[in-house]
């Protein structure tokens, strides 16, 4: 009996680590969706870029975890802003379908462009976090797990504070509420959207570095699956709602580790998509969403 209990706790720890990565990625999706109503398919690939910058910083430049994390976040946020300016801005008034197809195009470009630059081979992350293992009553905590969860939580708190109390955060909320009214109030909508992309991409890059450390290997197509799953997490929590993305990420991470634990790890990806479809059919606005009426 005690063994089963320990197993459950162990799976919760694993699920929490994975879930905090998903939550960080989901935040980027949800912020971008909240402000310009676009599913940024390329977000998953920004995670990959972030992971590569992190790999370069730790392996080639020999930086430690935190400087590498900050470097990855800074560079990826610049890339995120560039993508928005070049690819998405001209399409701001285009149809949804055109914007979505552009996002798919950007995603393919980043994936295969980086294959050309860094070669399709996998890279191995060096152990940048201490390998210490804590055994608390039979449940194993790796130091890496703890640092990852703490990093994710700190970033999320920071984000929450930014959105709630700073000037740019207020501008972001105003633009996502009503773009035209925000413009009339003197808010620079273009800069606010850029800032949203920058913050979302930076969080994605952080997730990428953590993902690289967690799974040890990275490759140019690594961003696709976590990207899609984080999107599911964002929908689960209610897309466009920041706390929803955090909760959705954690719930998805826990579900996945439980599915693996009961011996269906091959079906893990399918389960995530089944959750997505179930949410979309039962409550498309997500756990935290409010129902809106259709208006002409």
């Amino acid at each position, binding site marked *: 009996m005690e063994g089963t209990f320990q197993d459950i706790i162990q799976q919760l720890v694993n699920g929490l680590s994975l879930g905090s990565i998903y939550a960080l990625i989901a935040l980027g999706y949800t912020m971008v969706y909240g402000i310009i*109503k676009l*599913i940024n398919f390329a977000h998953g690939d920004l995670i990959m870029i972030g992971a590569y910058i992190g790999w370069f910083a730790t392996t080639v430049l020999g930086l430690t975890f935190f400087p590498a994390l900050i470097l990855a976040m800074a560079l990826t946020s610049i890339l995120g802003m560039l993508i928005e300016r070049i*690819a998405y801005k*001209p*399409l701001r008034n*285009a*149809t*949804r*379908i*055109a*914007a*979505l*197809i*552009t996002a*798919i*195009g*950007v*995603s*393919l*470009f980043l*994936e*295969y*462009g980086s*294959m*050309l630059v860094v070669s*399709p081979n996998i890279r191995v992350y060096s152990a940048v976090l201490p390998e210490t293992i804590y055994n608390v009553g039979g449940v194993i905590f790796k130091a890496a797990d703890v640092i990852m969860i703490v990093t994710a939580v700190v970033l999320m708190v920071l984000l929450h504070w930014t959105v709630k109390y700073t000037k740019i955060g207020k501008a972001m909320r105003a633009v996502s509420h009503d773009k035209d009214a925000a413009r009339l109030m003197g808010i620079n909508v273009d800069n606010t959207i850029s800032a949203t992309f920058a913050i979302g991409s930076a969080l994605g890059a952080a997730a990428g570095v953590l993902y690289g450390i967690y799974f040890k290997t990275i490759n140019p197509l690594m961003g696709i699956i976590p990207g*899609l799953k984080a*999107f*599911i997490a964002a*929908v689960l929590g209610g897309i466009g709602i920041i706390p929803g993305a955090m909760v959705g990420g954690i719930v998805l991470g826990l579900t996945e580790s439980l599915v693996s634990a009961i011996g269906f790890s*091959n*079906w893990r*990806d*399918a389960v995530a*998509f*089944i959750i*997505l*479809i179930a949410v*979309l*059919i039962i409550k*498309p606005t997500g756990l935290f969403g409010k129902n809106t009426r*259709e208006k*002409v």
Partner: protein
Amino acid sequence: MKTINKKTLFSAVAIFAVYGIVQGLIAFNALSLFYVLTLVQTCIYIMLAVSLNLIVGFTGQLALGHAGFMAIGAYISAIVTMKFDGPLVLALLAGALAAAVAGVIIGIPTLRLKGDYLAIATLGLGEIVRVIWLNTDYVGGAAGMSVSRSINWTWAFFLMVITVLVIRNFIRSSPGRACISVREDEIAAEAMGINSTKYKVIAFTMGSFFAGLAGGVYANYMYTILPTTFGFLKSFDILVMVVLGGLGSISGGVIGAIIMTIVSAALASFPEWRMVITAVLLIILMIFRPNGLLGNKELSLRVFQKKRGENNGLAKN
């Protein structure tokens, strides 16, 4: 009303001429195997692109799971030919029908969703289909399934022609017009008494049927089918063809499929470059010509006829 007019006669002659020329070249061994493969693949992609265009271009529902339906058609038809020694026609029909049934089952709940949500739900469904085949040992799991080749150029070409004709006639029929009205303005269509969900499901089911048929042709031509072939990148590939040719244009879908298959074949040894070029093409196209090269126009002889008509009108004045 005449059922056979000059235009249909001309189209029929053109279709048989294309078929005859290629068949002749194959009969005299003038085409290398690589070219024949590319030609058959072109037919398969035309079927996929035209059927996806029915869903995305004509009915306006962004679906990203076309490869999933292709996979259902491919695996079911392969099971019929390989496990039950069934005839090819039966296999192709079974595959297409299975895909259509899946289309109905999947379509009814998901087509209530709009835009982005539908895209993601269908993408998810395509992935679920892939994972199911991946974990089914009966069809070889990740190692794939080997299928003997029973499709040749004749089969592929005429199945492609049938697909294009059926979808073209559907678009011109009353339900087809209803589908287009759903694309133009769903709320207005509903107000005019069109059951938009019904027509979305009809279009989705027809699209799935022909995707399944294309999958069957693919499976019985390519010797092996692997679950990884039918990932969402395949769905994106088909979408690129549709978007390139023209959303809401049958001839656009055909042209898009031909261009992309030739480009892929030409860049076969540089797969990364192929994808980078595709991606850049897609972005540029969306920024400057969001409805594709042809838009919703059709490439036909009528273009010349109309011009002549206008000239006549001017002459009269």
